[in-house]
């Protein structure tokens, strides 16, 4: 199993010469099993890169949405297979306490925010996801709610004897007075425990975090502490703040950890 980072930016896209190395597109990851089966994680603007990815089978495309903040769904309307009557696209994502996923997504995929209605797309299926486990092809997927404003899922994906945890928007230090010492009070712990590859929120510097506490994201130190706590094999940094240009990101990645730290750069492919 391997992953390809199609969009690594958080909150809002930032394109320009100062973000060429890490990328400016928002959250999207392609997961590919050894047999060629694929999953797409989130549909930020990075999903447009997959329009030209021929590893995606048009017969069936499954997109797992962690949550419905715009930086995770804004690319949906620009992902060509959703308009293709020859492509089956399944959208999997969280419900709210009062609305199913289709109704929630319909708020974006309808006028005035988007000219085409979700219900008018030819072969798009919408699947409500609740905490638990399910399979898609060779992928065994476990999901749970994680600490971020609004219903937000983290995913653990297992296939080919490897495991990936994807928590792009996550503030594990919130809700744990003793973070990172108390696993039972740490959001995302069970989902990420012992995972081979952890793709995790890496949004703020330590100087930025205090004024953004409760916004649902991690500082660099918190992401590293969480990865250490869960015993992750490697940490792929993700959801980079739009205020952080390449030089800043190079600087914040210059830290010592007890595991391999992989700077999340758009276009990077990593074997799990």
């Amino acid at each position, binding site marked *: 199993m391997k992953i390809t980072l199609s969009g690594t930016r958080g909150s809002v896209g930032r394109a320009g010469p100062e973000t060429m190395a890490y990328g400016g597109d928002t959250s999207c990851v392609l997961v590919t099993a050894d047999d060629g089966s694929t999953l797409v994680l989130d549909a930020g603007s990075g999903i447009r890169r997959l329009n030209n990815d021929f590893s995606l089978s048009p017969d069936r495309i499954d997109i797992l949405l962690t949550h419905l903040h715009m930086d995770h769904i804004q690319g949906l309307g620009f992902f060509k297979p959703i308009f293709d009557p020859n492509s089956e696209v399944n959208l999997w994502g969280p419900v709210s306490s009062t609305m199913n996923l289709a109704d929630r997504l319909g708020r974006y995929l309808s006028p005035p925010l988007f000219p085409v209605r979700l219900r008018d797309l030819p072969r798009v299926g919408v699947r409500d996801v609740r*905490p638990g486990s399910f399979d898609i092809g060779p992928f065994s997927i476990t999901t749970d709610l994680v600490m971020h404003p609004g219903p937000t899922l983290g995913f653990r994906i297992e296939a080919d004897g490897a495991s990936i945890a994807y928590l792009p928007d996550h503030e594990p230090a919130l*809700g*744990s007075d003793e973070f990172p010492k108390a696993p039972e009070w*740490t959001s*995302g712990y*069970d989902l990420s425990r012992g995972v081979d590859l952890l793709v995790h929120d890496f949004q703020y510097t330590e100087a930025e975090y205090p004024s953004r506490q409760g916004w649902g994201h991690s500082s660099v130190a918190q992401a590293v502490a969480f990865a250490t706590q869960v015993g992750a094999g490697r940490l792929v940094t993700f959801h980079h703040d739009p205020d952080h240009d390449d030089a800043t990101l190079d600087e914040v990645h210059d830290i010592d950890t007890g595991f391999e730290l992989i700077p999340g750069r758009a276009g990077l492919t990593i074997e799990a």
Partner: protein
Amino acid sequence: MPQHPIEIILIQQWASMMSVPIWITDAAGDLIYFNEPTEALIGVRFEDGDGLSASDLAARFEITDADGSELHWHERPLVIALEKQQPAQRHIRIRAGDGTTKVIADTAIPIVGEGHRQLGAMVLLWDTGEDHP
């Protein structure tokens, strides 16, 4: 110990900031947290009470109805919240950790999480200020 549901983690975080005594139990009624004001009220630190059931802990308070009469188990707000999935409130008397008897407004609220999962209950113990010898 497995990780608690995110809804419980959020309530615990909130309760840890509150000045009112608050307990949290899981769906089976087992105590999973009480905050510092509860410690001050009952004279037991959470670390020392960890692992106690809610009923074990309640037994330490010598709980009676507000008039001093016996309070049956099924009349207690926490039991109503857990068994009937309804909020409940009652004025009760307890023997506080300092040995005094206090009248408490005991309020229990079921914790109904995402997908209507019954995750437990939280209990607020509001000291009415009425002390009894």
